[in-house]
């Protein structure tokens, strides 16, 4: 065939050549190319250096800045903000003070959410805590399964964020900024590292919800923002097609869909002969990827290959039922298939009221699935290069609010596990009433910087130009927290 054998070209195309070849004459793409090139240049620190790409990297970064400890991230996002006092931060003093006026010395002049202008009373944990594992990490009785993997965890008890309302706190936790249009962490990873799969999106978001404490989330939490659209997170649906439009129309079987795509390719090939528009080759490649997705997504979400023992491990009764536990199995399957960033939201943790039933229900919903994911990855040898983050967009107040707790940003707990994380440790602590992070506070930028470091990325050097600025996940802040790295 002629030199523009678009199909062959498309099958061999990779992102780099695509970009180089599609530069010509395509306004928007040319622009995207320029900014990407500039970003890539900025990202690698120098141009023209020989590529030292770590295995599996195919993104804008041309070399690892730091030793690569983790290849992918699974972010178990406990949306709504679970209480640290009923999970990982045991405060006996607070329990002693339960029901009494909360000392004014802690709260004076501080930002509160719904507790503004009210009398503040201490609320002790309604649960008890025990020490688990060789490390002796204190975990609440609500989470026996997570407690059983205590030696794999690095619990951070000194997290802090800047945003006290759900919407902006989610934005901050995911994008490091509250300005709309900043790329999310997963988009940064996909942009910087590419994905190890060509048949699935490289950044996938799964949702589940609990019985109490639901709060809305937004697609901007997995948006690519100012990065090109192909880096955005793809939300899997719990109803209908897992991915929007991934199912062929009714009355069109797979082979017929293939016939249509083949004919589209022929039409596009004829067009390419005439116009020589290089965008056509890319389009053909995208149709091929789309077709692969049409078969790989159903294969992915088909749990029949999972033995009963695995379902039991996760506590999944009906695979694919949209529960958090089921999503945890899916997360492992995605990790196995080379997806770079997997984010599981579980909306269940906004306990302004009904803290006790809410926490009990939430714990029941996520405890076993979370622990099973860690165990499962470990027995498959994948925990070493998978970085897991478990936590909410903020924590809860040590003060009560009716039968619950209000939002709190000055000290809360999250945990990391897996690739490059110092397992079996507790990092940082809060004051005796759990109001404020005292020792080794970790803010969201620090958490991001550290996670990037574990993935081999210097957070200063993963950036893109937008409106004249070097946009980064960590903005102009963030320091790597060595104490949580192995």
């Amino acid at each position, binding site marked *: 065939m002629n030199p523009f054998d678009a199909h062959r070209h498309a099958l061999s195309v990779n992102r780099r050549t695509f970009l180089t070849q599609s530069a010509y004459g395509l306004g928007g793409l040319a622009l995207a190319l320029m900014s990407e090139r500039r970003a890539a240049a900025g990202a690698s620190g120098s141009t023209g250096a020989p590529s030292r790409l770590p295995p599996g990297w195919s993104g804008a970064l041309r070399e690892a800045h730091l030793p690569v400890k983790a290849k992918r991230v699974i972010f178990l996002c406990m949306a709504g903000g679970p209480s640290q006092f009923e999970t990982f931060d045991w405060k006996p003093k607070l329990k002693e003070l339960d029901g009494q006026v909360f000392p004014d010395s802690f709260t004076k002049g501080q930002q509160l959410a*719904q507790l503004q202008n009210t009398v503040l009373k201490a609320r002790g944990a309604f649960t008890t805590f025990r020490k688990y594992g060789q490390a002796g990490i204190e975990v609440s009785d609500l989470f026996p399964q997570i407690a059983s993997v205590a030696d794999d965890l690095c619990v951070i008890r000194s997290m802090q964020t800047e945003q006290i*309302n759900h919407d902006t706190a989610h934005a901050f936790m995911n994008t490091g900024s509250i300005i709309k249009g900043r790329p999310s962490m997963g988009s940064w990873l996909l942009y910087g590292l590419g994905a190890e799969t060509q048949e699935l999106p490289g950044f996938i978001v799964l949702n589940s919800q609990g019985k109490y404490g639901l709060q*809305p989330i937004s697609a901007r939490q997995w948006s690519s923002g100012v990065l090109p659209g192909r880096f955005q997170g793809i939300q899997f649906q719990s109803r209908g097609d897992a991915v929007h439009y991934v199912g062929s129309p009714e009355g069109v079987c797979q082979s017929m869909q293939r016939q249509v795509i083949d004919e589209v390719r022929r039409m*596009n090939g004829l067009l390419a002969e005439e116009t020589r528009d290089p965008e056509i080759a890319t389009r053909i490649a995208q149709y091929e990827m*789309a077709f692969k997705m049409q078969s790989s997504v159903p294969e992915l979400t088909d749990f029949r290959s999972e033995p009963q023992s695995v379902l039991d491990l996760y506590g999944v009764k009906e695979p694919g039922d949209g529960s958090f536990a089921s999503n945890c199995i899916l997360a492992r399957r995605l990790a196995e298939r080379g997806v770079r960033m997997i984010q599981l939201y579980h909306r269940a943790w906004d306990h302004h009221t009904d803290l006790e039933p809410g926490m009990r229900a939430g714990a029941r919903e996520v405890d076993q699935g979370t622990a099973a994911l860690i165990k499962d990855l470990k027995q498959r040898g994948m925990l070493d290069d998978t970085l897991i983050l478990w936590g909410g967009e903020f924590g809860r107040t040590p003060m009560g609010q009716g039968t619950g707790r209000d939002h709190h940003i000055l000290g809360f707990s999250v945990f990391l596990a897996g690739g490059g994380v110092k397992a079996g440790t507790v990092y940082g602590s809060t004051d005796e009433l759990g109001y404020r992070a005292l020792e080794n506070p970790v803010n969201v930028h620090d958490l991001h910087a550290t996670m990037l470091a574990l993935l081999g990325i210097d957070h200063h050097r993963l950036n893109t130009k937008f409106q004249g600025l070097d946009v980064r996940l960590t903005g102009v802040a963030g320091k790597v927290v060595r104490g949580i790295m192995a």
Partner: protein
Amino acid sequence: MSRSILRSLLVLGFLPGLHGAPSTTAPISFNRDIRPIMSDTCFHCHGFDATTREAGMRLDLPEEALKPTKNGLRPIVPGRPVESEIILRIMDKDDPMPPETMHKALTPEQKELFRRWVAEGAVYEPHWAYTPLVQPAVPGVSDVTHPIDAFIRSRLGEKGFTPSAEAEKTRLLRRLSLDLTGLPPTPAETAAFLADHSPDAYGRQVDRLLTSPHHGERMAVWWLDIARFSDTVGFHGDQNQRIFPYRDYVIRAFNANKRFDQFTVEQLAGDLLPNPTIEQRVATGYNRLNLMTREGGAQPAEYLAKYGADRVRAVSAAWFGSTFGCAECHDHKFDPIKARDFYELQAFFADVKQWGVYSDYDYTRNPELKGFTNEFPFPPEIEVESPYLASRHAQLQTELLAEIETLRRPASVADDAARYAAWVAEQRAYVARTPGGWEPARATAAELRKKGQPLADRKPSVAPDGTLDTDGPLAFQESLRVTLRPDGGQVSAIRAEVTLAAPSGAASEAKWRWPLAPLHLTVHVQSTAGAERTVAVAFADASAKQPRYQSGVELHGITEGWRLPEPTRAETLTGVWLLAEPLTLNADESLVLTIRGGELPPVRLATTRFGATEPLEVAAPKVLRALAADERGPTDEAVLRETWRLSTRSDPQALTRYHRVAAGLRATRGGKAMTMVTEAAPPLTVRLLPRGNWQDETGPVVTPATPSFLPGRRESTPEKRLTRLDLAHWITGPDNPITARAVMNRLWAMYFGVGLSAVVDDLGSQGELPSHPELLDWLAAEFRGGGWDLRRMIRLIVTSATYRQSSDYRTELREADPANRLLAAQSPRRLEAEFVRDNALFIAGMLDLRDIGGPSAKPYQPAGYYAALQFPDRDYVNSGADAQWRRGVYTHWQRTFLHPMLANFDAPARDECAAQRSLSNTPQQALTLLNDPTFVEAARQFAARVIADGGTDDARLRHAFRIALARASKPAEVDSLQAFLATQRATYRAAPAEAEKLLRQGISPPATGDLLELAAWTSVARVLLNSQEVITRY
């Protein structure tokens, strides 16, 4: 490396890398060659922001850069690189600038540029975008008359390139049509253009398309991105906001070619104009398009700061093409934008009436928003006429009158007439024993229930006049249940009279806590055997009520609950529930009325056997008069016949039809709609917030002033505080150079894909020097000086030979000008999301072009997409056939969950001003075109259209190309598709059930004719709709 060695190496030219640098003879230009590098690598520490400045060295201003620093170093010595500190430092391997920690190493080429610039005298130039706008002379180029072509050809000539030939006529018309209206040409339009050989054939097409009402729709997509127009508030619950009339305004403005200065003034400050028109007030909806919140726990002051910052970013992006965003926290690092500029600009908008949190929570009281729930709108709003709704209102009004005429028609057959006469006689007797036509409910049982079970310990009291009192609020799942047996077992309507006491002074003594929970009344029939069935209510309304909303839409009447208004005096309010069909109880049946609601004032129930067109018309005086009259005139007869048909099951179809039309008519809301506007209030105090921290009140109070770095600055004085109107006038005044530049640059991008300065959202020093600076200035001056006439500028651009060039790929340009910035050819460009949709539906013959403007429409969307949305929970209901196939510009814009089709094709969420969309090419796009029901349905209709036009397969295929691509097909294309068609026919013949399934997609009327043939052609249509050429404008 020691300074002296470095110097000697420099002098001798021995430094590595320098020899590889390009050696051109053209002098170095500061703006083109040096500023971008300085901006990227130096200004962070040696630029505008005093707080981060190092070593007291400032390089952005020549007067600073040329004088010795406090350490005695001379940053730049013109003509003498070896004496210039900056040259020594950038060459210094041991202690380089920028320092390694910055990760901003200069390339050898960049170092050489610096050296040469200093050697050539270190001539600074002011930043191009901020300098006064002077129209440059058009370069003289032989045989070129169009000014745009002169600028472009002159550059091309310098580079030794020739322009491309004009595009083929068919392709040119398709390009023009898509660019100006977002719609492709019809085969007839293409044929007419091909047949027109007059010299002005093209110009006539330009004029036709520029005056098409669809031009405004196309332009609106451009502006709505910039204005960040959306149907929802964006934060947290992302509730609906009422704002579509603003979109109508924008479309109308472009269709009327409203002057851009006026367009600007009306949006920013229409409310401040003398005697503002409704249209000018609608335009001020612009200032309300910031994200808003109603999240419980959100702090008003924090969100007011966010809204203020949002407006500054939006206004500066829209009208200055500049990024003020960073100046919220500190002076801009790379541009002369100071934090003070940010807050001074914000201060212009401090009078916009708004609330930090749009509710009335316990922790933060907003008395004006008392009773607001998550279903409520976001005031201030005004009511305006919507042409779209008004036309439907008028049409339905006519239909309704016709239905009423039907109800009033004389009885047609003798049998009917006899029944009517008997009914009248019976009702005369009924009214005689039932004064007023309403029978007070004589309860056979009255009880309180919870979850359907009677409460043993609490009973309602029944007064002699039948008034029921629950004596204490009804809790969750509790209800008041009344059983009765109306006169003759006939019921058409239920009435509830609620007696409200006068307010009782002190709040603590008030019996009721207003606003009360809405009162719900449901109707059942119960047989003695215990069976119960629900009776449908057509509509209910009340003499007075508090408005209720569902996702921001005001509910009609009280069918879905009656929220009582807080009384100012003792009064009795009346609510009437009109049954969908008159009811006749069997002998063993009773009527059961159930009332739910929290605190329930004493209520008196009544029933009647009379129906009516509207609840409050039941048993109207005219009916009672007509019944009482001994001599009935024609009017009386008409009233009685209407009442007869509404009160009996004599013509159930007419009854159902009437109620359906009446409900449709109500939905048009009298042809009116609410829309958010700007209302001026006493301005909030605006402080400069150190590091953007809203809790820090140490910063100085600022007053409105125009940006300090732009010419003609205007500042508030103690006597005169500048207003939004002053800002708008300054923006569109003769001193401001940047607005015309920014708008022309964005306009250019619409027709060539890239702005003359490629970074259209940042004309500052981190942006890009324009590829053709003189052309941009020429266009900007022409625009500003020529009456801000946007259509004239568009016409100028699209009539240029530069625009009309072929977009075919030219190998020889590829290396020299990879991004096609010299414009020796046009650039192909994928259509934007809305037009991908419009184009497919247009090709299918389905696109609904009946109306310009109107409420947002809801195309099919995957089920459950809004599952993670709450406060309130959202249920996306697709628009029906009346609005399903409207243009993409009317699609409901949900900021947190944008319609997947729009999102997949790069439409922005519109959280922030989006001056340019990215154009990605992803598998999600392929999946959308292949499988989204909209496109599958479009393929079926396109196929039906092609089949209906008749002819052989060959003729049909050729016709399909003309429809889909506005061009003739090529033999290879037809051959290939013919073979494909054969396989599809074979496939569907073998599996006819599959054909039926394929053709079921969407809400179009079911397919008819040869379904197997239609299915095969649908496959062909899918191929065409998925082809790159259909979604690309070449």
